[in-house]
């Protein structure tokens, strides 16, 4: 399994160069789970819901079966509406307009769901982690207040490598 993970990592870890952006995002989504603590562990399986970006869902579908997340079998669920989020612990909202993102976040903001977005104003829309591009590198920014709102704790190691950390709730 270690070998498989190494092989997988070697294909997905690179955020630059010739790797597909979807694959990098999928790998990052998987790794975020290792630096975030949920208030209560999910019961049977660990589900990552992907809305509006089928590439990422597809990459995660390749990646996750070989891994356990928080010692639970991991699954990906591609959804088209926020209503389908179900018991997912991670919600990734892909390239959507601000309105749709805001609505989706509002629907789950009180639940212990790690919300990851890819929107230039993702954090201000209420997302906890938001992908961003710096020097053509895929980076991310974190909102600590959003994590608190969702009753989650983000590891300082993750904060350390974040491109930007917002400590306070955005008004």
């Amino acid at each position, binding site marked *: 399994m270690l070998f498989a*993970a190494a092989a997988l*990592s070697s294909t997905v*870890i*690179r955020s630059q160069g010739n790797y597909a952006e979807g694959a990098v995002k999928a790998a990052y989504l998987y*790794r975020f789970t290792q*630096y975030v603590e949920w208030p209560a562990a999910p019961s049977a399986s660990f589900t990552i819901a992907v809305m509006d970006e089928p590439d990422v869902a597809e990459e995660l579908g390749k990646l996750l079966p070989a*891994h356990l997340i928080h010692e639970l079998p991991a699954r990906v669920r591609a959804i088209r509406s926020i209503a389908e989020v179900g018991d997912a612990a991670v919600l990734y909202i892909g390239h959507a307009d601000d309105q749709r993102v805001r609505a989706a976040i509002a629907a789950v903001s009180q639940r212990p769901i790690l919300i990851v977005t890819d929107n230039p104003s993702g954090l201000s829309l209420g997302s906890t982690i938001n992908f961003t591009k710096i020097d053509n590198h895929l980076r991310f920014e974190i909102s600590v207040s959003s994590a608190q709102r969702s009753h989650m704790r983000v*590891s300082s*190691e*993750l904060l350390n490598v974040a491109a930007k950390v917002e400590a306070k709730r955005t008004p």
Partner: protein
Amino acid sequence: MIRQSLSTALMRVVLLTTAAAVLVAGLAMLTRDLVVIRQSWAADMTNEASVLALATGPALAFDDKRVAQQFLDALSARRSILMAAVYDNDGRLYAAYRASRANQPPARAPGLERTTIHGSRVELVQPIVRGSDVLGTMYLIAQYDIVGRIYAYLGIFGFVMVLSLAVAYVFSRRLQRGIMEPLNSISTVARQLVERRDYSLRVKASSSQEFGFVVDALNNMLREVQSASHAQEEAMRSLQEEVATRKTAESALAQADRRKDEFLATLAHELRNPLAPIRQAIRILERGNAGPERSQWARQVIERQVARMALMLDDLLEVSRITRGALELKKDLVTLDALTNAAIETARPMIDAKRQSLSVHLPARAVSLRVDPLRLSQSISNLLTNASKYTNPEGSIILTVQISPQAVEISVQDNGIGLEAAVIPTLFQMFSQVDAAIDRTEGGLGIGLALVKGFVELHGGTVQAHSEGLGKGSEFVIQLPATVVVEMPTVTAPETREVTMPGTSPRKVLVADDNRDAADSLAALLEMGGITVSIAHSGREAFEKIIAEKPAVAILDIGMADMTGYEIARRVRSAGGNPIYLLAVTGWGQADDVARAKEAGFDEHFTKPVDPDRIEALIRAKVSVGQS
């Protein structure tokens, strides 16, 4: 080999032991420290790597080189780390830090997980893992300062060593004082013993128990040796004394023996000497043609020579008695005058022959002595004869008698040849002659002075010789105890001196001998001396005459055929009431003969040939002085 002082050796041992202990302990600590420190370095590096892995893990996970580099650059604070490199999951160098003295990190990951230690250099390769995912590889090289550490250790060791040696030195000094002081006093005594052999030395007592035992043992041994050596010295000394005594005795014996031999030779010579003139005189008398003058001369020769022989034999007998302790004095009262006169009469012929002068000094008052008249007068005459002999013709001799409350002193002085101081102590020894040559010409056996000494000592007196040296004359002094003096009544006329003995006929002497010539010649001699003599030619006749005539003195031959002298004496004594003076005359002069005569009742014992002069002197002494 250099004999090292024990204290130095002891000090050396203590210091060496201390140094060795410190060194061994130090080396052990250093070794242990090097092992432990390397392990701790390895652990240190592992921790460092783990922290780095944790820190750089997210950077690798989210491909953040900047963060990774930040973490690695933070290692510059760690001086021991030479190089740190992070490789990505494909083994490519992702981020690196190196100290200025270090090499470039390799471009590819150096392999599997490992930790290697080469001396002070630690290399570590460790995977960077998150959960079950391997994110990359961490490669660390550290160089620890082991030399500095060893130097630090050496510094500490040096300090500890100096301190330990100082402490050891101080303690060793104190220890030594406890050990060395008794040891020193023992060794001092031992050295003195060897040098002086003085076993009275003792070792000072020690406070330490072990040394106390040693010291006590040594002192006891010394005591033993001392007493043993004392005893040995004592034994040696007494042995030496004994040897010396024996040697003296031996040489005295040898000397006595030699003197005896000389004496015997002299005796034979002296006894032979008179024989020649006697024989020749007899030849002259035998020849009918000798005229009356010549015959008279011949008889005088014989007379002189016989007298001389008889004198010698008498002396010999007396000497024999003295040496055997068998001489008994016949003490009697005698006046000093009679004593000295008898002595002078005996010595007179010789003194006159040498035309020497004799002056006599006697105390003014009349004195009687209770002595043996014969022996004492012979002693004085011997001294006079001796003085005459060793004094040149026409010399002078002085006889002095002094009576003090303490002693009677009879001195004979001459101006003769004198005496060497050395010979004085031997003068009175038996058979001694000062100068054999003189004695030979003068005749004599060399026993005269010995006789004097014997006689005088029997009287409880002493005789001494004095001389200021050769040619200075000499003086012989007889000292008798004052107890011999018997004071006489101051008024004593010469007539009253001839007191008749009660119950005896005055001046009457009986001579009895069955040898008619002997009896008659002795009687004739005595009569010529003015003594009334009666003669008996047999024992029986003698006894009858004693009873009938009551003579004052009877001279009896022992060996008479019909009645021996012993028997006559016994009968006379047993008849009692007769104070007659009995004289025995025999040819035997042995001690038992004398004893037998005494036992039979004789007063005096004479050995033939009897010197008529002596008998006459005795008779005069007996008859002229009464026994009141």
